[in-house]
């Protein structure tokens, strides 16, 4: 049950003067239970692509196979609920979707929409609030009373509570302090390890290097690369040409004169190992 895009095109405002290509002939296949990074600079089409994963946008042409659904331009809006349950989308600054009177009720919103009984929904909501690190003390407070970081967690719980097979996140760490970011990433890694697919939209190449199994690179609505991080960050020239940053570690490594690395080190750990080999290897 992998995710498969075939020649997907998407056009914003077709047939008007504002017509704009959002996706341009995008094809790829993603393996289940992997951690995928989706990168590309502003306006490259990452969010547009993301909204195709649960059919918020439907391709103008081409086909998508995801979570057992086959989506084309003809797919109707009926019966998409199950798809939305299986593919969870966390938008940028998701705290802006909170609306209920209490944290608990807000997290229950999803499960109840997907047909769960109140009691089940409550149990699930409590479980996931705990998982994302929201203390039980605040679950009957208004979500608007919480700090920014806590609101973010509640909002993410509001999607994870549906336990989607595929979880897509659009820059979940934006605006958070470093510790909160790190904790957040750990939650997603754990979710993936527990047997789900995680797709992360990010500008942070160190996160890509550290967590991703597979990387999609977008530019002007086109998929310009789909490969393992090792391969994506292999060619400095290519990265420069497409205005992509290198992970800090590999940047540092390439500035070390006289060093030889078996493989381009992408993370600090790889870098340290590489340096060790160099300086101790000669002994």
């Amino acid at each position, binding site marked *: 049950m992998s995710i498969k895009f075939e020649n997907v095109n998407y056009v914003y405002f077709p047939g008007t003067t504002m017509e704009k290509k959002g996706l341009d002939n995008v094809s790829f296949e993603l393996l289940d239970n992997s951690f995928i990074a989706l990168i590309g600079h502003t306006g490259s089409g990452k969010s547009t692509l993301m909204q195709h994963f649960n059919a918020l946008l439907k391709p103008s042409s081409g086909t998508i196979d995801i979570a057992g659904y086959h989506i084309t331009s003809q797919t109707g809006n009926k019966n998409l609920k199950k798809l939305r349950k299986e593919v969870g989308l966390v938008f940028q600054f998701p705290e802006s979707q909170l*609306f209920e*009177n209490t944290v608990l009720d807000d997290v229950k919103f999803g499960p109840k929409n997907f047909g769960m009984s109140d009691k089940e929904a409550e149990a699930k909501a409590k479980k996931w609030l705990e998982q994302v690190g929201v203390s039980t003390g605040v679950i009957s407070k*208004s979500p*608007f*009373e919480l700090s920014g970081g806590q609101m973010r967690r509640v909002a993410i719980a509001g999607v994870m509570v549906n336990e989607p097979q595929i979880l897509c996140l659009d820059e979940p760490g934006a605006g958070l302090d470093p510790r909160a970011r790190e904790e957040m990433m750990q939650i997603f890694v754990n979710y993936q390890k527990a047997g789900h697919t995680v797709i992360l939209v990010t500008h942070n190449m160190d996160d890509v290097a550290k967590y991703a199994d597979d990387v999609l690179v977008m530019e002007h609505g086109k998929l310009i690369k789909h490969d393992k991080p090792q391969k994506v960050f292999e060619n400095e020239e290519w990265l420069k040409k497409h205005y992509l940053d290198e992970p800090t570690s590999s940047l540092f490594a390439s500035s070390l004169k006289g060093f030889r690395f078996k493989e381009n080190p992408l993370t600090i750990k790889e870098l340290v190992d590489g340096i060790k080999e160099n300086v101790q290897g000669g002994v």
Partner: protein
Amino acid sequence: MKTDKNSLQALIFTGLFAAIIYIGIWVLRIPVPAMVGRPFIHFGNTLTAVAILYLGYRNGMIAGIIGLGGFDLLNGYAATSWLTMLEVVVVATVLSLIFKGMNYQDSKKNIIILGIVAGVTKIFTTYCVSIVEALMVGTSLQVAYIGAFVSLPATVINSISTAICTPILYFALKDATRVIMKKAK
């Protein structure tokens, strides 16, 4: 926010409320079958009623005039937008007077009554507006009456939605505001 209607924050929020009303007509609409007129329910009227109760008479009225009237002005109903603005004045005045009579007690019962009042007033004003519109294009009075009457059903549906949604939104908004303002004051 209600306490100081002239504070910069209150004025800005009035402007944003007007923008929300505009969007309420534009984006949040439900098509309904109707013989004439605009065949959809939109949330502009509801939001205007909420604005009046929430922002007070003056600012609520301004938000409504700009949101509802501005929408008409910019979207092809320019010639009759002044009538829409007048409607807001009437609705705002009626609602505010009754609310004042209730000593601004926003109990559940009172707000539900005000929602219904808003709906009913709207039916009345829309009827008058239809007549004036018809006279504007030159029909005889009798024809104007009939025309206005025929376009009533769509208005009634819109008014029912106003009556239902006003209390729902008012309370939800009030709760949320209380929390935010507590955090931000």
